């Protein structure tokens, strides 16, 4: 198994290499450059030209690429053009913000979706089931920005229960207890919104899995042994129904760093999604390429993680 995992990691290298070339070319194809946004009526065009030349943006793309990749493999993704900061530390800070937000959302998502999915499947066609279906289609149909704005208006603006933007109150020193508390406090509302919007998929998947598994032969065998119904559910039906959910777990874990563009923008939360959008609009090449490379790596890692998780929970699957 370890051999396979190492091999899968080695296989990622050529995949990431191809990805890096594609990203680099696509990023360069975008019209405009990092300095376009800086132009004001007073700017001397020769100054812009000077900056572009200095940044090496006038070189052919492959020269730029080689220069970039040589540094990137050493962990140096360059400086952000707009933030004037080291890309790695910029992403690291945003990634941490996004991680905590996503982490709480995913926990809330599963805490809501798994019980609802199981109950709807177990009592399928009951009033409870119909209520759950209504809930899940309602949250599925509602656009992200609508629910976010409604929540923001009600809980942030009207009731003033939660802050309406940012990731931490500026009055706290980093590292203090108040700072950590403030961070957590800022996460709650966006996390709940994010979680509610994501529940539909898990609920519907789990519900139909439970309904299918209920009719399986081995469940009939379990019932024929005379074990209590709740044990038939906990040991046979639910365990088997959770397999497909477990199959997505790897992607969910690595997806924690992806962030949500809508949620982060509306709640003014400085995370990865927001960084990604702003870096594209400001043509911040070094940030764009670094982020897409990171997402690519996470996707590959997610599929490997999913395979490993599946081989742990399902004895029929062995990584050889």
């Amino acid at each position, binding site marked *: 198994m370890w051999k396979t995992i190492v091999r899968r990691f080695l296989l990622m290298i050529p995949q990431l290499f191809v990805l890096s070339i594609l990203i680099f070319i696509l990023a360069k194809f975008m019209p405009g450059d990092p300095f376009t946004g800086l132009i004001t009526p007073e700017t001397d065009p020769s100054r812009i030209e000077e900056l572009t030349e200095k940044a090496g943006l006038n070189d052919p793309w492959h020269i730029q690429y080689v220069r970039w990749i040589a540094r990137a493999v050493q962990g140096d993704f360059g400086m952000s053009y707009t933030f004037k900061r080291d890309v790695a530390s910029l992403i690291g800070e945003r990634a941490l913000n996004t991680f905590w937000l996503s982490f709480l959302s995913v926990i809330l998502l599963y805490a809501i979706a798994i019980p609802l999915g199981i109950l709807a499947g177990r009592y399928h*066609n009951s009033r409870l089931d119909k209520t759950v279906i209504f809930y899940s289609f309602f949250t599925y149909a509602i656009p992200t920005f609508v629910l976010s704005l409604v929540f923001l208006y009600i809980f942030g603006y009207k009731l003033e229960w939660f802050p309406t933007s940012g990731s931490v109150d500026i009055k706290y020193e980093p590292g203090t207890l108040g700072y950590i508390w403030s961070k957590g406090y800022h996460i709650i509302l966006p996390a709940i919104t994010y979680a509610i919007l994501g529940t539909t998929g898990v609920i519907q998947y789990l519900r139909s899995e439970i309904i299918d598994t209920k*009719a*399986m*032969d*081995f469940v*009939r*065998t*379990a*019932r*024929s*042994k*005379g*074990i*209590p*119904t709740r044990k038939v559910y906990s*040991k*046979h039906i639910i*365990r*088997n129904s959770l*397999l497909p959910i477990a199959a997505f777990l790897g992607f969910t874990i690595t997806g924690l760093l992806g962030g949500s563009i809508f949620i982060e923008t509306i709640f003014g939360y400085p995370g990865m999604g927001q960084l990604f959008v702003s870096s594209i609009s400001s043509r911040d090449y070094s940030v764009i390429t670094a982020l897409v490379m990171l997402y690519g790596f996470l996707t590959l890692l997610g599929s490997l993680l999913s395979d490993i998780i599946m081989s742990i*929970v*399902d*004895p*029929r699957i062995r990584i050889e």
Partner: protein
Amino acid sequence: METDVLLRIKDLHIGFRINESFYNAVDGVSLTLRKNEILAIVGESGCGKSTLATSIIGLFDRSNTRIQGEILFKNKNLATLTEDQLNDIRGLDISMIFQDPLSALNPLMRIGEQIEEGLIYHTKFSSHDRKRKVLELLKQVGIQNPNRVSRQFPHQLSGGMRQRVMIAIAISCKPKIIIADEPTTALDVTIQAQILDLLVEMQQETGAGIILITHDLGIVAEVANRVAVMYAGEIIEEAPVKELFLYPKHPYTRSLLHSIPQMNSYTNRLNAIEGMVPSLKYLPRLGCRFSSRIPWIRKEAHEKRPALHEISPGHFVRCTCWKEFHFNKVKGDGTYELYAN
């Protein structure tokens, strides 16, 4: 005589919901199972034999099934018990063996755990005793390496081994009745014989009564004591096994026996019964249900409300059409050829 009756089914009707109305898949079945007896229920696919078998211990979807009549076991009518009450009987007094042993075992649980499950709820054994009992059971059903097998998962075993495991589960609490629903259908022919032998051996050891559901008349002849033939939800003939094979009466039974390939005959074509079982929804509920498949027999030969008649001790036949039944065409070499349009 009455004391050795294990199970008595009286006028049982089992209906499934199709678009808000119920259609009976089992329609007025009465049966008795005695101690040490292997009662075979035969019939073609869709005749209701599996429905009957699984309904005895209530293994149906309650919201879409309607059950009427009596299933008497130990003075209790199983048809009226709740799921919790049935759980005290399932596995302990009445257990089941199913057709496909791969899908009938939980793919995520070790063999040992699956055998142990019933013991947890039906015995007061300690965990240690249960583990020992599991190994004992595995050995009893002829598994060579019980220690290793108990730690394996179903997909790691062969079909025959899995069915042995199913039998181990079924006999784990020494049940009075074992219901075997096509226990050998999914297995290789060589393995079939081994599993049947094992089933008979276990029955003789435990003294249980067995209800054997099958469509394989060879198996019936080999192991059964008594046979009930089902057609379209009804029992159309019931007799001791020898009597049935030597003196089949009902046209359906005769046609079934007739369609067994014969090694010593020179016919090129396999004898088949014309037509097929009408689907549940369009089943004729009045008159002889087999009449549509023997159209060359005159209408008056059938009873209006076909009943089971005891024509010799222990031999019951439904309807009166058997008295006039003949195969459709006789060929020159003495073998029958069935009616062809």
